[in-house]
């Protein structure tokens, strides 16, 4: 099953990339995500591994994931090593007016789980989609807020100068 959400953020693509690629900041905007721990020597980049969990229904679901695409500042994709099967992606594109279009996709399932798996994927879909939507909103708000603070800091610096 695939779930996705997108948003447009009033910030340059580099600022958005800096946030979505930083494992330390995942918990501050990813909705429903209860864990996002670095499990590799390198915290970011191709081959970086994280242990992640997302609360869906009565369980926290996820597992060990690995970054399989790392093209700053456009594409970030991961795939599951253990836990449920999943493939996720952040897709960033510049939008008119110095803004950035951000899209998150998550394909998930449990291979070999038959009819119950088919049902579970579909019943979980609205929850997962709503988590992704809130994540997009929270990401936009977080970056907006940071941009405002940066601009304010810059103004203060010029006034003080």
């Amino acid at each position, binding site marked *: 099953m695939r779930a996705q959400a997108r948003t447009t953020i009033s910030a340059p693509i580099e600022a958005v990339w800096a946030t979505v690629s930083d494992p330390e900041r995942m918990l501050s905007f990813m909705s429903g995500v209860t864990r996002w721990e670095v499990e590799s020597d390198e915290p970011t980049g191709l081959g970086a591994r994280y242990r992640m969990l997302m609360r*869906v*229904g*009565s369980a926290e679901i996820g597992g060990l994931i690995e970054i399989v695409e790392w093209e700053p500042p456009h594409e970030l994709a991961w795939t599951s090593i253990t836990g449920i099967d999943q493939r996720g992606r952040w897709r960033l594109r510049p939008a008119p007016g110095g803004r950035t279009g951000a899209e998150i996709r998550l394909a998930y399932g449990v291979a*070999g*789980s*038959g009819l119950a798996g088919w049902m579970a994927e579909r019943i979980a879909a609205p929850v997962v989609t709503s988590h992704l939507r809130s994540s997009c909103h929270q990401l936009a708000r977080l970056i907006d807020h940071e941009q405002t603070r940066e601009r304010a800091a810059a103004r203060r610096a010029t006034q003080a100068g």
Partner: protein
Amino acid sequence: MAVADRARSNGHTAQERHQAETEHGSQGSLLRRALREVASQAQRRIPRADLDERDPDFIRERLPLMWLMASLWYRGEVRGLGNVPDSGPVLLVGNHSGGNMTPDTVVFTLAFNTYFGVERAFYQLAHNLVLSMPGLGSLRKFGTVAASPQNARTALEAGAALLVYPGGDYEVHRSSWEGNRVDFDQRKGFIRLALQQNVPIVPVVSIGGQETALFLTRGERLARLFALDRLFRLKVLPISLALPWGVNVGDMLGHIPLPAKITVETLPPIHLRDEFGPEPDLDEVYDHILRLMQDTLDALAAERRLPVIG
């Protein structure tokens, strides 16, 4: 196999049996003989514990089904799994509810397996009768092993997480109005086990199971009357009102549980020797753990607005 066939295969002739019956005479003894036969049958069916029977792929493929049951039927909620140490042997000690259908086990087993991954060895001790029940053989693939001190030691020595319900059949069939009480019947074997293996105890407190049917009585006197305690290690012959049976005696065939909301809270680990000294007193530890679990259960009960609905 019928009782008579069984007797014959054990080398008794029909005449001998007839003699024995006339000697004992009463119907009671006939019933006892029949029960004894069933008991020996059940004994034979108890699988020898083999930790290798746990099958991670099998568990993984069943997770969606368990997730559907836990999420839709029980609206399960498991909190505090982060309290369980990330690796190494640990003894999870739970209060047990819900008759023989044990919804708390379904909800917790799912949550544990998704949280830590099916790769982490996780075993559950279950009553002998559960494992010898026809049709429940697949439980062994989930890591369920017959409750015995030996099996418990083997699992912990292998570095696994082990879930035990000290209250067992006694607690699981308590009446519905005692639903929010932790009752281990003074069983302290789990503390001895934790001390012997030097593993931390993580209490797992659950609520809601006793609302999946109307449990009336444990029927301890009935169990003694039929000598179930000696024959099957069963201290109880519970009576409840449950779907689809109406009056449900024994709960041997299970029942359709009401969709009660199940909430489970996992507490921080207790390292017995750190907290109670090098030679902890069993009674003191028992009282401490019971009080801790009861306090948690009281808090969970206070959160609940309505029975079943949660």
